C-alpha cells in the first residue's frame, strides 16, 4: 500500500491512510502528550493536550483526531503550543487536587516521603496512591508547571467506597472519558458509567449514583486500569506501589482459562489486569480482583503440620513428607484415594493420577466437579469411604464432609487455605499453586495454555507437584518422582481436547462467576466478594456496651476538611489534668493499635477532650469511621510533658495538618502568660485550612501559608517564619506541631536565625510508653524517646536526616497493615 508522506518537526515521516497525526508521530518516535486518547480507544479529542500546528490549517488541531494527509507539515512543539499546553494543564490542575505539583518543597518531599500517605481521600499527590503512575502529574512535571495562577477548586465529591474492589474518588477526575468509553467498548455498548450532568456539574457516575453492584457493572476493572489519574483505584493494589514486572499467565480458576497479566513486586503478586483492553482479552471479576488476593492472603496456610498424640505440631517440610509417607505406607491398593481440584495444572493432575496408580496401586483418583458453589466428589470414592473400603485419602483441599472425614483412618492434605480437612489431617502441606507453579492448563475451548511462575514461594513451601513427587520418592516409588514440572510436561500424553460446551461465561454474567477453589468459597477468603455473589442484607453492627453510659463517648464528630476529623470525647479524668502540649492514646476497640493524638482542646466543666485526627492509615481510618454517639474502647492520658508556659516575649506557633488544631491550646495558654503569640499555619491548599477563626481569636496574629499559593503566602510554615524574620520580627521562642517532614523544614529555617525551636515528636510514636523504641530520636550525643522525654524536643539538635530515613524504612511495614473497609458489610478486614 502506498504510504502518505508528511513532515513532523522537520522529519520525513511515512504513514498509512486513516492514520492520525498522533499515530504517525508515535511511529516516528515523536512524543505528543495525550490524556483522553488511548491506544485501546477511538479518537475523542476532548482534552486538547495533543494539539499541534499544521501548516495551512487554522488554529491548533488535536493530533489524536486529525488524519494525516500527503505533504502535511506538522510542528508538535513550537513555543505557542507549549504555552497552550501549559494553560490546559493549569486548568486541569486547578480543578484537581494538585497542590503537590506546584509545591516549593516537592523534590525534598518526594525524597523523604517515598511512599504516599494512605489517606481516606486524596487531597494532593502526597496522598494519592497513583502518584508514581499519573499522566497528569507526569506532564505537569515535564511542562514545568510551577504556579497555577487560576483559582484552585476542590470538588469535594464523597469517595465511593461501598463497592467491592474499587474506590472511586471523582474529586480527582479530569473528565477525560476514558473509563466511560472503555466500559462501553468492552460491554457491547452497554456502559455501567457515563457522563452525568453537564457544564461544571458534569461528572462520571451511574444511574442515580447507585452502587456499581446495583448496575450492570461486571467488575472487569477496565475503567480502573485505563484511568490516567488516581480517581479510580483497585482497593487491594492501590497502596502496594508500582510493580517491578508484569508476568503473563493463565487464570485457572474456572474452565475459561483466560490469559491474565499479574503484576509482581518483590516476588509478590500485587495485582492483575487483562492482557489487553479488548473484548477478547477480558477477564472476569474473579480473575481481575480475587486471584491476586489469594497469594498474600492473611488466611493462607504458611506452615506444614503433622498430627501427633498431643495435638498439632508445626514442622519442617522434610518431616511432613516423612510423616505423610509413613502414614500412607500401609494403605496401598483400593484402600487409598486421591482427590484434586480442576483448577490445577495438567501436569499436577497427571502426577497425582500417577501417584495414585504407581505409588499407591489404586484406581481411586478423581478431580472434583463444581456445581456453582458446591463441590462434587466422584460417587465411587464417596461410596468407598462410606463403606469403609477406602481408609486413607490424600486431598488438595476441602472436599469431604465431616462424616466422611471421620471415617478415614489417614488423611493427608496439601492446600493453600485451612479447612475442617486440614484440622483433622494427619499431615498438612502448605502448598503453592496457581501463579506459584508452572505447567499447562486446558481451557474450555480445548486450548493448552501456559501457566507461569509469577510469585516467589516462601522458603520451605513448595508447589503441589513437588509435594506429590517427594512423598512418592520417600515411599520408594521413584518412577513418580520428578525434578521439575517441565519434566512432567514431556511425559504427558497428547492433550485430550476437552469438550467445548458453551454454557455462558463469567465474563458476561456475574451469576456465573466461579465460586469455589479447592473446596473454599472465594467469598470466605476475599470477603468483599460477598457484596457481589451473595445479595445479603448488610450485617447489623453490634452495639458496643461499655457499662458506663458516657465513658469515652464521642459527643461530637465532624470532618473539618477532607481527611481531618475532629472528635470531642467524653473523658472527664483526662480533661481534668490536661496541659498544653500533651497527648492522649486512643483505641477504637481492644484489637486496634494504640495511637497517640495531640490534644487540640479540652473543657474541664464539660469533661471533654478534643482531638483532630488525620485519616492516614488503618488505625486512624478506624477512628475516622466512628460516628457521634460511638464509644472508644480506650482513651488514656494526658501523657507526655507539657510545655513550659511562661513569658518568652514573642512566640511563634507553627502548625500543619492536625497540628493546626494542636497549637490552639498553646496559643491560648501562652497568650494568657503575657506573650505576643503569632500562629503560622500551613495546608497544601486553601480547602484544607481549618480553625482559622478559632486561632485568630486565640492569638495576636495569624499567618496563613499554602503549598499551592491558593491562600496568602505560598509555601509552608518555614516561609511564614522567613516572612516574619524578614519584616524584622524578633522571635524568642517557637513551637512546631506537624509531620516530621514539615518540622524538619521549619527547623532548617529557625536554625538560620537561631530561634529556639521545640518540635512535637508525636508522629514517631507507636505506643506512647517508651516500650517500642520507635520514637527514638538522636540529639547530638544523646538518645531520647519522644513519648517519655517529649513530645516536645529541641528541634535544632535533632538529627532530622537520620530520623526521616529511619521513618521511611518503617513505612513499608505500615503499608502491610492495609486499611480495608467496605461499609456494606460493616466490618474491617485486610482482604477486600
Amino acid at each position, binding site marked *: 500500500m502506498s504510504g502518505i508522506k508528511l513532515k513532523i518537526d522537520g522529519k520525513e515521516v511515512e504513514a498509512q491512510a486513516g492514520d492520525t497525526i498522533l499515530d504517525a508521530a508515535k511511529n516516528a518516535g515523536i512524543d505528543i502528550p495525550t490524556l483522553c486518547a488511548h491506544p485501546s480507544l477511538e479518537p475523542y479529542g476532548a482534552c486538547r493536550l495533543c494539539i499541534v500546528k499544521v501548516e495551512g490549517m487554522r488554529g491548533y488541531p488535536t493530533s489524536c483526531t486529525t488524519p494525516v494527509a500527503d505533504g502535511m507539515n506538522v510542528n508538535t512543539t513550537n513555543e505557542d503550543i507549549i504555552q497552550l499546553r501549559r494553560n490546559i494543564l493549569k486548568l486541569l490542575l486547578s480543578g484537581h487536587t494538585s497542590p503537590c505539583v506546584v509545591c516549593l518543597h516537592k523534590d525534598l518531599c518526594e525524597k523523604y516521603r517515598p511512599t504516599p500517605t494512605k489517606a481516606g481521600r486524596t487531597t494532593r499527590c502526597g496522598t494519592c496512591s497513583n502518584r508514581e503512575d499519573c499522566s497528569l502529574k507526569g506532564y505537569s512535571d515535564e511542562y514545568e508547571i510551577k504556579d497555577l495562577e487560576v483559582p484552585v477548586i476542590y470538588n469535594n465529591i464523597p469517595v465511593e467506597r461501598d463497592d467491592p474492589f474499587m474506590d472511586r474518588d471523582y474529586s480527582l477526575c479530569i473528565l477525560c472519558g476514558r473509563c466511560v468509553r472503555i466500559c462501553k467498548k468492552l460491554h457491547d455498548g*452497554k456502559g455501567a458509567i*457515563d*457522563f*452525568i*450532568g453537564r457544564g461544571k456539574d458534569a461528572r462520571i457516575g451511574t444511574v*442515580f449514583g447507585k452502587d456499581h453492584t446495583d448496575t*450492570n457493572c461486571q467488575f472487569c476493572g477496565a475503567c480502573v486500569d485505563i484511568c490516567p489519574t488516581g480517581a479510580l483505584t483497585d482497593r487491594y493494589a492501590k497502596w502496594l506501589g508500582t510493580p517491578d514486572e508484569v508476568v503473563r499467565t493463565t487464570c485457572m480458576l474456572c474452565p475459561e482459562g483466560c490469559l491474565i497479566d499479574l503484576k509482581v513486586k518483590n516476588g509478590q503478586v500485587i495485582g492483575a489486569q487483562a492482557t489487553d483492553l479488548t473484548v477478547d482479552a477480558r477477564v472476569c471479576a474473579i480473575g481481575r480482583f480475587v486471584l491476586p488476593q489469594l497469594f498474600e492472603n492473611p488466611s493462607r496456610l504458611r506452615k506444614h503440620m503433622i498430627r501427633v498424640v498431643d495435638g498439632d505440631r508445626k514442622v519442617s517440610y522434610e518431616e511432613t513428607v516423612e510423616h505423610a509417607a509413613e502414614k500412607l505406607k500401609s494403605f496401598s491398593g483400593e484402600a487409598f484415594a486421591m482427590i484434586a481440584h480442576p483448577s490445577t495444572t495438567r501436569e499436577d493432575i497427571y502426577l497425582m493420577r500417577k501417584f495414585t496408580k504407581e505409588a499407591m496401586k489404586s484406581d481411586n483418583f478423581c478431580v472434583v466437579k463444581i456445581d456453582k458453589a458446591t463441590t462434587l466428589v466422584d460417587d465411587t470414592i464417596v461410596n468407598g469411604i462410606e463403606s469403609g473400603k477406602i481408609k486413607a485419602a490424600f486431598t488438595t483441599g476441602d472436599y469431604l464432609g465431616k462424616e466422611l472425614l471421620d471415617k478415614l483412618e489417614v488423611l493427608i492434605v496439601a492446600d493453600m487455605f485451612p479447612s475442617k480437612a486440614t484440622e483433622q489431617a494427619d499431615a498438612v502441606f502448605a502448598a503453592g499453586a496457581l501463579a506459584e507453579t508452572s505447567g499447562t492448563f486446558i481451557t474450555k475451548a480445548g486450548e493448552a495454555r501456559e501457566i507461569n511462575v509469577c510469585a516467589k514461594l516462601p522458603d520451605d513451601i513448595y508447589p503441589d507437584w513437588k509435594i506429590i513427587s517427594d512423598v512418592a520418592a520417600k515411599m520408594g516409588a521413584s518412577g513418580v518422582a520428578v525434578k521439575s514440572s517441565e519434566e512432567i510436561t514431556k511425559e504427558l500424553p497428547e492433550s485430550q481436547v476437552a469438550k467445548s460446551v458453551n454454557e455462558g461465561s463469567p465474563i458476561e454474567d456475574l451469576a456465573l462467576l466461579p465460586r469455589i477453589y479447592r473446596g473454599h468459597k472465594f467469598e470466605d477468603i476475599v470477603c468483599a466478594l460477598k457484596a457481589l455473589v451473595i445479595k445479603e442484607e448488610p450485617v447489623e453492627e453490634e452495639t458496643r456496651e461499655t457499662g458506663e453510659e458516657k465513658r469515652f463517648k464521642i459527643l461530637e464528630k465532624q470532618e473539618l476538611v477532607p481527611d481531618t476529623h475532629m472528635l470531642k470525647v467524653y473523658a472527664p479524668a483526662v480533661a481534668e489534668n490536661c496541659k498544653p502540649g500533651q497527648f492522649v492514646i486512643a483505641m477504637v476497640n481492644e484489637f486496634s493499635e494504640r495511637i497517640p493524638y495531640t490534644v487540640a482542646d479540652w473543657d474541664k466543666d464539660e469533661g471533654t477532650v478534643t482531638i483532630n485526627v488525620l485519616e492516614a492509615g488503618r488505625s486512624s481510618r478506624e477512628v475516622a469511621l466512628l460516628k457521634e454517639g460511638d464509644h472508644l474502647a480506650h482513651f488514656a492520658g494526658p501523657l507526655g510533658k507539657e510545655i513550659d508556659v511562661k513569658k518568652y516575649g514573642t512566640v511563634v506557633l507553627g502548625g500543619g495538618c492536625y497540628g493546626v488544631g494542636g497549637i490552639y491550646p498553646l496559643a491560648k495558654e501562652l497568650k494568657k502568660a503575657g506573650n505576643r503569640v503569632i500562629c503560622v499555619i500551613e495546608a497544601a491548599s486553601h480547602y484544607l485550612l481549618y480553625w482559622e477563626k478559632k486561632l485568630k481569636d486565640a492569638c495576636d496574629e495569624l499567618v496563613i501559608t499554602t503549598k499551592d499559593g491558593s491562600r496568602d503566602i505560598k509555601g509552608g510554615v518555614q516561609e511564614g517564619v522567613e516572612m516574619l524574620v524578614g519584616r524584622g520580627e524578633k522571635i524568642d521562642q517557637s513551637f512546631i506541631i506537624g509531620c516530621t517532614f514539615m518540622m524538619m523544614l521549619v527547623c532548617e529555617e529557625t536554625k538560620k536565625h537561631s530561634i529556639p525551636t521545640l518540635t512535637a515528636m508525636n508522629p514517631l510514636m507507636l505506643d506512647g510508653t517508651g516500650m517500642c523504641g520507635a520514637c527514638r530520636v538522636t540529639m547530638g550525643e544523646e538518645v531520647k524517646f519522644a513519648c517519655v522525654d517529649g513530645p516536645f524536643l529541641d528541634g535544632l539538635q535533632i538529627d532530622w536526616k537520620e530520623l526521616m530515613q529511619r521513618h521511611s524504612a518503617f513505612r513499608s511495614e505500615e503499608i502491610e497493615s492495609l486499611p480495608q473497609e467496605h461499609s456494606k458489610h460493616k466490618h474491617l478486614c485486610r482482604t477486600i
Partner: protein
Amino acid sequence: MPTETTMIADIQAVLKNYTDDRDNLIPILQEVQEMSGYISEESMDVIADYLDITPTEIYGVATFYTQFVFTRPGEHVIKVCLGTACHVKKGQQIMGEIINYLGIQPGETTEDYKFTLAAVACLGSCALAPAVVIDGEVYGRQTPQSVKKLLKEIRES
C-alpha cells in the same frame, strides 16, 4: 396519584409510538416527563429495556438537559434564586429559612409531596432581589419572615 404499575403500563403505551431506535430517547423522555411530571427510576428501566441501552446512559443523557427531573415533584415548586444580585441581597438566608421550615434540601421534595425546593441561578428578577418563584409566580424582596409567612399560607390553603 397513579400507582407504579399503571405508570409502567402508561410508559409502555408511550413506547408503542416509537421504534426502538436509540435516537428516539429524547422525545420519549419528553413525553414521559410530560405525562408523569418526572422520570422515575422504574420508567428509566423500562425505556432502557426497550431501546437496549443501560439506565446509566439514559440518566447521562437526561441529566445533560436541565428540563428533566427525576423525582416526583411536589404540588408546589419553590425556586430560590441564588444568582449574583440575590446572593448579594442575602438570598442564601432566604434559602436557609426555607430549608429550616420545610426540613428539606434544595432538589428535594417534602414527604407529603406538598413542596419541592430548588436553587436556581438568576431568575431575571434582579431588581426584585432576593427573589423566590413559587409555582411560576415571582415573589420579590423577600425576608426570612415574609417567605415563611408565604409558605405557611400555601401549606394551610
